[in-house]
C-alpha cells in the first residue's frame, strides 16, 4: 500500500533503459517518502527477469509471465496494471514516455480516474495548498503534504508548469528516456519476487488486438551517447544545410541532432530530435547551429558540458546558456569550423 511503482517496459527479455532510469528516480522518491519501491514486469519467458531490476533498489517485483503479453498490446497490459493497482493502491506510478508508456498510461489513468502528466522533466516531493469545499459547501484551505510535483514544459515550451494531483491516486507521470540518470544502487540488493497468475488479471477477450508483423531495428545513430553533438535548427534552412552539419560531425566524430522546428520542416529525420519531446543528451560539447533555443529544446541539452551557439540573431535565447557565441550565419561558419579543424588537428 502507498508505495512507488514503476512499470518496466520490455523488449523481449530486456528491460528498457528508460525503466531502469525510472527505477533509479523511483528509489529516491520512495526513500524521501519512507515507502517501498515496487515494479511490474509483464511479458513472455521472464524467468530471472528480477536480476535486471533488483540492483536498482526494487523491494518487490511483480512478474506477469504469459505468451500473449509480448509483444505489448494495450488491453492485456492495461487490465493487469489496473487490477494490480486496485489491490496495491500505489501513491506514485512512473512509466516511460515511450510509445508503450504513452499508450498504456492514459488508459490506466482513465480507468482509475487518476491524474497523469506526460513527458515530465523533473519529479520532486513537496507540499501543496488548495481551496476545497468542506461538508457545508464552504471553500476552505487544505494543506497537502508529500505530493509528487510533476514538472514539465508546457504550451509549446514557453512555460514550465508544476502539476499536482492532490485528491487522486496513484499520481502518474511519464518521463522520456535519458531525462533521469540510471544508477545501480547495490548489485546485491534483495527484494521480493511475486509471480502472478496472469489469467486472474487478464481475460481472453483482452487479447483481441493481434500484432501480425513487427520490425524493430537497432537505432541508426547513437545520439544519446555521443560525446559531441552538432545540432541544427530552423536557421540551418534546408536539407542541404544539414549535409554540412553531417560533414562537420564526420570530422569531429560527432552525431547530428536537431530542434523540433528543423524536424517539422523536414530537414532531418524525426529520430534526431533533441528536447522534451525527443532525445535528451549530455555531451561534452554541444554545437547549436541556427537554433533559437525554446525551452523544450533547452530541456534536452542544458546539461551539456560546453555549449557553442552559432546564430545570426545575437538575441537568440540559447546564447544565454552558451559558453561560446558565434554571431554569424551557419552556412558560413560551419565550413570554417571544418576547415580550421582539419588544419589544426593532429
Amino acid at each position, binding site marked *: 500500500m502507498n508505495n512507488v511503482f514503476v512499470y518496466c517496459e520490455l*523488449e523481449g527479455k530486456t528491460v528498457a533503459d528508460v525503466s531502469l532510469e525510472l527505477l533509479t528516480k523511483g528509489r529516491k522518491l520512495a526513500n524521501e517518502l519512507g515507502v517501498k519501491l515496487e515494479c511490474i514486469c509483464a511479458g513472455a519467458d521472464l524467468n530471472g527477469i528480477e536480476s535486471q531490476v533488483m540492483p536498482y533498489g526494487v523491494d518487490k517485483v511483480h512478474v506477469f509471465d504469459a505468451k500473449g503479453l509480448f509483444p505489448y498490446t494495450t488491453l492485456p497490459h492495461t487490465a493487469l496494471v489496473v487490477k494490480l493497482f486496485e489491490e496495491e493502491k500505489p501513491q506514485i506510478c512512473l512509466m516511460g514516455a515511450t510509445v508503450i508508456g504513452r499508450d498504456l498510461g492514459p488508459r490506466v489513468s482513465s480507468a482509475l480516474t487518476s491524474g497523469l502528466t506526460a513527458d515530465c522533466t523533473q519529479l520532486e516531493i513537496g507540499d501543496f495548498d488548495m481551496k476545497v469545499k468542506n461538508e457545508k459547501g464552504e471553500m476552505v484551505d487544505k494543506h497537502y503534504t508529500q505530493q509528487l510535483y510533476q514538472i514539465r514544459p508546457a504550451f509549446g515550451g*514557453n*512555460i*514550465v508548469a508544476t502539476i499536482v494531483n492532490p485528491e487522486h491516486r496513484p499520481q502518474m507521470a511519464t518521463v522520456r528516456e535519458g531525462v533521469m540518470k540510471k544508477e545501480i544502487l547495490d548489485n546485491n540488493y534483495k527484494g521480493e519476487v511475486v509471480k502472478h497468475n496472469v489469467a486472474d488479471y487478464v481475460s481472453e477477450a483482452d487479447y483481441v488486438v493481434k500484432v501480425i508483423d513487427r520490425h524493430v531495428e537497432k537505432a541508426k545513430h547513437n545520439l544519446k551517447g555521443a560525446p559531441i553533438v552538432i545540432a541544427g535548427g530552423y536557421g540551418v534552412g534546408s536539407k542541404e544545410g544539414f549535409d554540412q552539419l553531417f560533414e562537420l560531425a564526420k570530422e569531429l566524430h560527432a552525431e547530428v541532432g536537431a530542434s523540433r522546428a528543423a524536424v517539422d520542416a523536414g530537414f532531418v529525420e524525426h529520430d534526431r530530435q533533441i528536447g522534451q519531446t525527443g532525445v535528451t543528451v549530455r555531451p561534452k*560539447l554541444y554545437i547549436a547551429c541556427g537554433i533559437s533555443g525554446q525551452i523544450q529544446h533547452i530541456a534536452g541539452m542544458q546539461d551539456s558540458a560546453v555549449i557553442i551557439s*552559432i546564430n545570426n540573431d545575437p538575441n537568440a535565447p540559447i546564447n544565454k*546558456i*552558451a559558453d561560446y557565441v558565434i554571431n554569424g550565419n551557419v552556412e558560413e561558419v560551419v565550413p*570554417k569550423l571544418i576547415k580550421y*579543424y582539419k588544419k589544426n588537428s593532429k
Partner: protein
Amino acid sequence: MSLKIVVLAKQVPDTHNVGKDAMTPEGTVNRAALPAIFNPEDLNALEQALRLKDKFEGSTISVVTMGLPKSAEVIREALFRGADNGYVVTDRCLGGADTLATSYTIAQAIKKIGDFDIILGGRQAIDGDTAQVGPQVAQKLGLPQVTYAEEIIDIKNGRATIKRHIDGGIETVEAPLPLVVTVNGSAAPCRPRNAKRVMKYKKASCPAERTETTPEMEALLKAKPYLNINQWGAADIDADLNQVGKAGSPTNVKAVKNIVFQAKESRTMTGSDADVESLIVELLSNNTIG
C-alpha cells in the same frame, strides 16, 4: 460496406510558431496573439478518414471538437476538405478541463452520436503534447485502441489492419471495430480544401457564433440546414458536472513559471576566419575536441 467515421479535432494555438509579436515586453507569451489552427495531427487523422470514405462508398465522416464557439472553425475546415457534418461541444462548465475531463466529455458526445464504426484523432495536440485524450476516450467507451498509426491499410470482416510506429520500428496490428485510432504526424498529409465544398460550406456556423440572428440568416438556414453546425452543451450530452471542466480534472497546476534563462558567462565572437580558428585551437588545446 460503408463506415460511420468520427474524427476528433482540436483548435489549438500555434505554439510552434511563437513569433516576436506574440511576446510581451516582459518576455512572456501573449496567448491571445497566437493564431488558432487546426491541430496538425488531427489533419492527418482526417486524411485517413477521407481515404476510408473514398474506399468504402456511402461512408460518412462526423467531426467532433470541444472548445470555445470559435472552434467551429475546425469543423468548417473539415467540411471544406470532405467531412459530412460536425459537432461543437461548448459550454462554460467545460473550461479548465485536463485530459481526463476532456476525454469524458468527448466520450459522452460520441455516445450521443451513438452509431459509429471507427474513431480517428491525431496522436496529440501541439498545445499540450500529452497524447492522452485518444486512449482515454477509448477506455471510457470500452473500445480497443491503436495509437501512433501511420496508415489504415484495410478494413475487412469487421477488422482493421493498421501500420503503426513503435519505439525503434514499426508493427502491423489487426484490431476489431469499433475502434479508436490515433494518427501520427508522419502519416499522409491532409488533402487541400475542395473549392466546391468551400463555396457550399463557407457560411456554415454553430449557433453560438451567430450572435445576431438576421432574417437573411434564418432564411438561409431554413433553405440550407447543412449550414448549421451542431452545437452541444454539457446537458445535451448528459454529462455529469462532477466529471467535466475543472471539477472533473484530477490534475492541478501548482505553479507556472515563465522561462527566463540564467545568463552564463559566455564569450561572444564573430564568424570571421580569425575568430573561428582561435576557437578551434582553444577547443583542441583543452581536449574538448580531439
